[in-house]
C-alpha cells in the first residue's frame, strides 16, 4: 500500500467519519458483517475484549456513521452497514486495507487529523496555500 492511499479525499473521510481508532474498529466490524443489523450493546460485546467501548460510545459512533451516510438506521436504533454512495464504499475499503497492512500509519494519521483543528483555523487565514 502506497502513501498515496492516504489521499486528501480519504483523509477528509477519516476526519469526518472516523474520529478514533476505536471508531475505525467499529466501522470495520459493521463492514465485515454487512448483512447484520447491530445494536450498540451487541457491537460493544462483539469488539470486546480487544476493543473496550461503552454502549454510549458505540451509540455516539453510530450517530457519526449515520451522519456520514455509512449506515442505515432502523426504528429500534439498530444499524446496518450501508454506504450511501460508492465513494464511501471505496474509502472504507481503503480503511480496511490500511488497517490490515499499515496499522501504525493509520493510527498516526487518524490522531493527527483529529488534533489539527486549531492548526486548520490558523491556516484558513493564509491567502496562499503553502
Amino acid at each position, binding site marked *: 500500500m502506497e502513501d498515496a492511499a492516504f489521499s486528501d479525499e480519504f483523509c*477528509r473521510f477519516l*476526519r*469526518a467519519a472516523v474520529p478514533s481508532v476505536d471508531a475505525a474498529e467499529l466501522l470495520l466490524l459493521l463492514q465485515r458483517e454487512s448483512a447484520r443489523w447491530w445494536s450498540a450493546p451487541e457491537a460493544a460485546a462483539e469488539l470486546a475484549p480487544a476493543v473496550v467501548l461503552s454502549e454510549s460510545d458505540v451509540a455516539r459512533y453510530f450517530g457519526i456513521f449515520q451522519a456520514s451516510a455509512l449506515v442505515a438506521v432502523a426504528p429500534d436504533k439498530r444499524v446496518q452497514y450501508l454506504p450511501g454512495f460508492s465513494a464511501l464504499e471505496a474509502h472504507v475499503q481503503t480503511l480496511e486495507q490500511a488497517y490490515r497492512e499499515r496499522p501504525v500509519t493509520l493510527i498516526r494519521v487518524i490522531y493527527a487529523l483529529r488534533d*489539527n*483543528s*486549531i492548526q*486548520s*483555523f490558523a*491556516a*484558513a*487565514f493564509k*491567502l496562499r496555500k503553502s
Partner: protein
Amino acid sequence: MGTLNLLLTLLAVLASLTCTLLLFRAYAGNGVRLLLWSALCFVCLTGNNVLLFFDLAVFPELDLRLYRLCASLAGILFLLYGFLWEAE
C-alpha cells in the same frame, strides 16, 4: 467625522467579510467543522458591522445597537458551540 465613520465601518465590513470567505474556503477544502462554526460566527460579525455602517454612517439618527448586539451574540454563540463540539 462622518467620513471617518464611513471609512472605518466600511473597513470593518470588508475585514469581517474577508474572514468569512477565507473560513468558508478552508472549510470547503478540508471539512474541519471548527472552520464552519467560525465562518458562521463571522457571518454574524459581518452582519454586525453592516448594521454598524448603517447605524453610524448612513442613518446616524437611528439606534441599531440592539440589533448589532444580537448579531454579535449569535456569532459568539456559533463560535462557542464550535469549540465545544470540537472539544468532544
